[in-house]
């Protein structure tokens, strides 16, 4: 809007505040944009509005109580957080998790990944203006929430893992329902693709927007689908297998150009791969116990470790220090994938238009509960 003829008029940069109350910042994210016309000159991301001090809080909770706190970080993928935390403590205590528990964990993680991606797809499409996809994706997410409700009684914050295994075995008939869901879901993914993948407006809105090369993506610390969208085949499920992923057959989709469209394609393909993994995990579900040999009082020996798993958003890592004396961790630290991915936002949106900012916030898929903890 402002002219570039230089001497004729003074152009002013317009500073606008996107958020913390803004319909498409996915929570309480605040982005201060410096605009030249509608083009973003520079930006500053302000976070911390949802900081609840979970890390500090955990230092005064015992080891089992913390599982509940991890639910509240990435609240759209609570089960994955649970698994990550439990595995870290298991690693500290050197507990062997039974095979059945590992299979169920795998299935639950992947269900959670689908649910999280459904939410991402819905909100991302909504930001770009395709509002029907939003409700379609939520329709399928609802099915997953029903499955989770049947499994652990909760629909959002599951608290569904225990150190050393699972709190409870799967309900009777649950495995059949999960397989049914897989059948439904694989059709619905095609439906999403029909609405968006070859839609010309969608292509124009996402192709070439927010391009980040593989080197830049690694340097800035992107992980998960945004990193794979840039063509780096890094997936912790493959590289450092945990739970039962080493026994599963699945592919890691990677993009080529590192733009919003590729990140979208990667996530859509992950829907299919997740369905594939769930099928394998449920069909090959071994019999056996669901909890390993866990002492009555969970008190890991003094020591520290860092353990990461692949959450739907990227690498979620836990750095835990135990002093070996008390029943709570000495230091509990989460490496939140959303936080590290969000760091790339200023780099991504620079030079793009305001309308692309919302597309890009959606494209890196942040959950503010996890960013701020």
């Amino acid at each position, binding site marked *: 809007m402002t002219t570039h003829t230089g001497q004729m008029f003074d152009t002013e940069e317009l500073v606008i505040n996107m958020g913390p109350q803004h319909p498409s910042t996915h929570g309480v994210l605040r982005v201060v944009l410096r605009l030249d016309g509608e083009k973003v000159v520079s930006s500053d991301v302000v*976070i*911390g509005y949802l*900081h609840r*001090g979970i*890390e*500090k809080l955990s230092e*005064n909770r015992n080891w089992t109580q913390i599982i509940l706190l991890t639910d509240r970080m990435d609240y759209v993928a609570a089960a994955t957080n649970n698994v990550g935390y439990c595995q870290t403590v298991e*690693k*500290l205590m*050197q507990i062997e998790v039974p095979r059945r528990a590992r299979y169920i964990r795998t299935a639950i993680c992947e269900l959670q990944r689908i649910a999280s991606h459904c939410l991402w797809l819905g909100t991302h499409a909504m930001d770009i203006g395709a509002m029907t996809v939003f409700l379609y994706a939520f329709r399928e997410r609802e099915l997953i929430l029903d499955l989770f409700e049947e499994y652990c009684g909760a629909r959002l914050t599951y608290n569904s893992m225990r150190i050393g295994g699972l709190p409870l075995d799967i309900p009777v008939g649950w495995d059949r329902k999960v397989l049914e869901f897989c059948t439904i879901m694989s059709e619905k993914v095609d439906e999403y693709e029909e609405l968006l993948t070859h839609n010309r407006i969608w292509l124009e809105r996402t192709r070439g927007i927010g391009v980040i090369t593989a080197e830049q993506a*690694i*340097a*800035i*610390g992107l*992980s998960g689908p945004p990193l794979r969208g840039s063509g*780096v085949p*890094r997936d912790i499920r493959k*590289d*450092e297998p945990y739970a039962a992923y080493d026994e599963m057959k699945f592919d890691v989709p990677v993009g080529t150009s590192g733009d919003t469209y590729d990140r979208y394609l990667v996530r859509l393909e992950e829907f299919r791969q997740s369905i594939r993994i769930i099928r394998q995990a449920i069909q090959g579900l071994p019999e056996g116990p669901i909890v390993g040999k866990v002492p009555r009082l969970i008190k890991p020996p*003094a*020591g*520290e*470790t*860092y353990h*990461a798993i692949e959450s739907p958003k990227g*690498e979620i*890592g836990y*750095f835990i*220090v135990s*002093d*070996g*004396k*008390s029943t709570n961790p*000495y*230091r509990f*630290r989460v*490496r939140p994938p959303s*936080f*590290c991915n*969000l*760091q790339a936002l200023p780099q991504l949106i620079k030079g793009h238009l305001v309308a692309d900012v919302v597309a890009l916030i959606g494209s890196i898929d942040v959950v503010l509960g996890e960013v*701020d*903890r």
Partner: protein
Amino acid sequence: MKPAPPSGPTDPAPPAGMAVPAFVSAIEAAIPGSVTQVSYYVGDWAVIVPADKLLEVARFLRDSRETAFDFCSDVTASDWPPRPQRFDVVYCLYSTKHHHRIRLKVRAADGEAVPSVSGIWPAANWLEREVYDLFGVNITGHPDRRRILMPEDWQGFPQRKDYPLEGPGELLMENPLDWLRLKQAREESEIE
């Protein structure tokens, strides 16, 4: 009866006979005097590095072909108040080529400078801001050292072990350290 606060992490040395992998042994070989201690626990290798050698080691770890730690997973810290160098600043590194991990550790006293590695791994930018914000570790050479999670005018550093966990709301918000002193004085007077 509370147990006495621990004076530091265990950092156990690798068990005898355990082969030290190349990416750990290469550091000392390349930069003499850079490794204070090598530790191994539940499968994780950690290396303690003096703060003044940190940048050199970090650059070596990123650029050397056999280490190739191009991905900075995490930067965090832990606080051990009884120790003179109370902070452990921990860098979790990962190599997307070789798929191995290592942890670098730097010990620092309150106010002691720890050089920023954000020039080597841009990913460390926000993570170091968080370490500064929550622990008050004096990260130097950082391009944009501001608080990140806490409000800009926050007093004190919440993740420190001596940060008060309770107190009269507003006073705690505005100046936790004053409250701490007040509380200490009160307790002392009660004892007398």
